[in-house]
């Protein structure tokens, strides 16, 4: 498999684990040094904002404690399209840009009798990923989700 295919596979695999809320399986695709962030630029305050920044340890705390927090249970469905993969010269790492739309399939959090079953666009953005290639597998070193949204209503505090 080419580096590009390996990288695409890893990104799509991550999407499937995240959609299935298999948080630990998702984290198993990530290196120990993994850095994750959700960012957005605000034309309101003219500032490059960080909405969440976490290393792998932080993410483990976050997902372990999720069951203790009240949340909106509406599942999220990511539609990821890998736009470009740039392998490094030695072929050991690569960066990738993917477009992602995340839909929320309504379950609760509003009037479930009326809204459950409906899907709403939750956020749009781009995954900016850095991966290393090891034994023919792509391992995430870094993921930045650059959101276009600055309106974020009640949602979930799951990783995106």
């Amino acid at each position, binding site marked *: 498999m080419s580096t590009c295919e390996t990288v695409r596979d890893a990104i799509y695999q991550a999407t499937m684990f995240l959609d299935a809320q298999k948080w630990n399986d998702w984290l198993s695709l990530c290196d120990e040094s993994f850095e994750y962030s959700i960012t957005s630029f605000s034309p*309101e305050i003219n500032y490059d*904002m960080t909405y969440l920044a976490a290393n792998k340890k932080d993410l483990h705390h976050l997902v372990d404690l999720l069951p203790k*927090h*009240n949340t909106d249970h509406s599942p999220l469905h990511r539609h990821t399209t890998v736009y470009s993969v740039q392998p490094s010269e030695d072929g050991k790492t690569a960066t990738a840009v993917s477009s992602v739309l995340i839909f929320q399939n309504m379950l609760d959090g509003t009037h479930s009798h009326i809204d459950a079953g409906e899907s709403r666009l939750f956020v749009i953005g781009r995954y900016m990923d850095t991966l290393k290639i090891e034994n023919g597998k792509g391992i995430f070193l870094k993921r930045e989700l650059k959101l276009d949204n*600055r309106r974020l*209503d*009640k949602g979930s505090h799951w990783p995106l």
Partner: protein
Amino acid sequence: MAARNHNQWMAKPPLEQGEWIDSRVYTDHEIFEEENEKIFKSTWIPVCHESELPKPYDFRTSSIAREPIIVCRGPDNQVRAFLNVCPHRGMMIERRPSGSFYEGQPSGNPKRMTCMFHGWQFDMKGSCVYVSREKEGYQDRLCKDDVGLRRLRCEVKFGGFVWVNLNDKAPDLETWAGKPFECLRKSLEAEPLEVFHYHKAIVDTNYKLWHDTNCEFYHDFMHYHNRVTGFNDAYFARKNEAFDNGHIVVGTFEVNYDKYEGFESRAALSFPHLPPNQWYMIDLFPGINFNLRGSALRCDVVTPLGPNKTMIEFRGLGLKSDSKEDRMTRINHHNSIWGPFGRNLHEDLIGVQGQGNTMLPGTEARRVLHGRQENQTIHDENGMRHYYDEWGRWLNRLPSSPDKPYSAPKETEAVTAAE
């Protein structure tokens, strides 16, 4: 008594007057319109922070009670506010959320606010400085001096927030909110602040329900994070203090951040004059909240959009002098609790949306209980009682029976007893 029939459900609760309200205050269209007209058009609203318009000719747009507003910084560095409405035919003058007038626009010169419609121009003081083909069209019947912008009262205060009041006759900002700000004034005014976070939520609920949630801590049972980092003797001794004009201050206590797995003390980056890991909260009538938690300041501003629709703008602030590294730490502290993916804020939004779901316009009125009395400490609901008493005064409506005129709690007791 187990479950209740309609009459029992609607009966006066076994509490004193002022300890419960009628839910129509959250659902009634007429009340919503009255609130916009009587309350929001006459109170001070922090529409943005001065750091959002750092340079001369920078601007920010906003709105209060449906009125579009523009705030801009003049070449004299003064921040001024105007209705964002062209005096010619009512076009919105500036359509972007923020920017600078230093550069020219397609229909206008630099350093001017230009209405794109017919090209009239205004300076940073709101004076009309150019009317296209003025003489040809108006001869001497109308001149630039007659068509300045509508100037609004504007003060930069309490840590650099830009406050606007649509009412020319309202009391000044110090008189309105000076006292509740005493507890944080030194911390907020020690050095310039800067906004580092902005997001907004539009939730199907009444704005007062959001404000209630900011004013009461009984709902900490909802927040696992708050339960484990608080809920000790010092927390239960924390006071809710009522101030004139419906404002409330929730006193401070030491938060035990390290009790929550993966979290750390905020002590190293406390705001000036703030003891380590303290947490103050100021709730201003009719729906503004300042929340200083150790290393980060949060400010919420509500914009009611309908009886059951509310926009809440959330800002996070640090010190302007922050190093890059300190700023990032503050941002992380802010986000871990209050960011859109944090441990607390989104639970609050789910809570108030749940209330909104049951209180749609037209739903059966019910009694909402505000009767917890715990010596005005953290789980006492005195903050909400104080707020709704003020609300009743502004609208001349009795919160527990909004069809009746307001009267102070003692007298209202007699009124209800005579029913």
